[in-house]
């Protein structure tokens, strides 16, 4: 079975500054994988490389078995700042990927309302991004990515800028959607709790230059909800292991 996404010995430099250092990572088909690591370590860079938005200097990234050279088909990204066009309504923003892919008017008209409903934005279609809350903007960004029916979904700290209560609601919504669709997801965050609540596997990266320090399997059964995960007997234990690895990543082999 091919992995949905694999990074083999990936390295990258920015003007001589080493950012990714021999990164090896495999995302199985249909898995929810979360990457955590100290801020500035290179998580966004790795995700952008997977999305084909930036090249790598050594090694190879494959999506669906094919080497990434520029934005690959079947991959959609959810951006940290939501990345909505301020001049488009919520509806037109969600439709964006379908429009530029040249889908028929009929197909767009059927698909968009479905995904708007999935992310609970029904009734807000005609509003502009500046008229809705940050949480709603992130929902719209998610709907836009899901609407093109990608096999791999890349999410870069999508909930970092929303308040804690909204974030919990968004987690539950994302869990509901994901448990139904089973897309392969690579999710970047700097929150251990978010990582455990959402994912099957937590990947811990070291501080810059980023390497994979360890993998932690989250063996908490699904369907999950934020509250049930946090109340689960395994939760504290998994959290502790993530925390230790992250501490190691933060302080380990200081130059």
């Amino acid at each position: 079975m091919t992995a949905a996404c694999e990074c083999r010995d990936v390295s990258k430099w920015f003007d001589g500054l080493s950012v990714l250092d021999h990164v090896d990572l495999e995302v199985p088909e249909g898995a929810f994988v979360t990457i955590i690591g100290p801020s500035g370590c290179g998580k966004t860079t790795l995700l952008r490389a997977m999305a084909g938005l930036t090249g790598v200097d050594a090694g190879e990234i494959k999506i669906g078995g094919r080497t990434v050279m520029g934005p690959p088909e079947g991959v959609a990204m959810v951006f940290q700042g939501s990345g909505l066009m301020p001049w488009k309504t919520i509806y037109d923003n969600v439709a964006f990927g379908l429009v530029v892919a040249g889908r028929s008017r009929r197909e767009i008209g059927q698909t968009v309302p479905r995904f708007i409903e999935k992310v609970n934005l029904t009734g807000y279609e005609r509003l502009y991004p500046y008229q809705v809350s940050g949480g709603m903007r992130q929902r719209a960004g998610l709907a836009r990515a899901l609407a093109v029916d990608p096999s791999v979904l890349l999410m870069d700290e999508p909930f970092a800028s929303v308040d804690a209560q909204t974030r919990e609601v968004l987690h539950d919504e994302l869990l509901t959607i994901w448990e139904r669709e089973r897309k392969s997801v690579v999710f970047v965050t700097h929150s251990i709790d978010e990582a455990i609540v959402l994912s099957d596997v937590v990947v811990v990266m070291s501080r810059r230059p980023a390497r994979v320090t360890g993998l932690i399997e989250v063996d908490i059964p699904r369907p999950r909800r934020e509250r049930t995960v946090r109340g689960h007997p395994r939760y504290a234990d998994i959290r502790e292991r993530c925390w230790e690895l992250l501490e190691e990543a933060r302080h380990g082999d200081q130059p």
Partner: protein
Amino acid sequence: MATSLSLERRASSSAPPPEVVERERRRRRSRHRLMWTVRVLSVAVVLVAWQVYGVRVNPILFAPPTAIAEAFVAMVRDGTLLSAFLQSLLVLVVGLGAAIVVSIPAALVWARYDPVDWAVQHYVNAIYATPLVALVPLLILWFGLGFLSRAIIVFSFAFFPLLLNAYQGAKSVDRELLEVARSFRCREYHVWRHVVLPSSVPFIMAGLNLAAGRSLVGLIIAEFYTTGTGLGYLVLQAANTFRTARMFVPVIVVMVLGVALLGVTRYLQRRVAPWSSQPERQ
């Protein structure tokens, strides 16, 4: 602590009572009335002062409002004002219209392709820094004394503010949005259509605002220099024959035209780019 909590709760409770709404409405209405009273008074004071002063001065140097009104009626009656106005309007529409149509695509290409940028940047800066009035005689030498020449002068006055603003707009496109477009595998056409052009719209509108004013300056200068048509010529003709009251009439018409143009561009700005006048919500 307890009091502040209860205060907060009361403050956030639903609609204000009717007497508060009524008081607020009355306050706003009386302020509105005061504003208009002050405005009308200010116009009246100026007109009266102008009239009182105007009738005492030699009519070659100045004219009172009543004399201007008389001249206005006369010029409307004999048709000179309307025909001059239409001649001017045609030049303005053609010159400004052509400037809009040419400058926007030119600016977007200039901004999106680095080699074009390297090739033209210094020329545009040089021309923009030159007072265009100095080039008017040259333009007339090239294009003659007719309609074409006037339209080209208006065009050149309107072109650069439009070009530079549209360029700024295309340069300041949000990089994340370009990345969004790229990640959805947009073709170049779609990047322009969905990202570059709309994000330039507020800048283009600001350019249009500037260009509207500049094009009027260009228009009057063009009509001063070329043969006898338009509002500019009416000004010149009246001044040369020392009919000062008649001179004020086209000046006031141009002023009204300018105010109307600015009103139109402001209206367009609000209509075309409603998001740009809104404060960012975080």
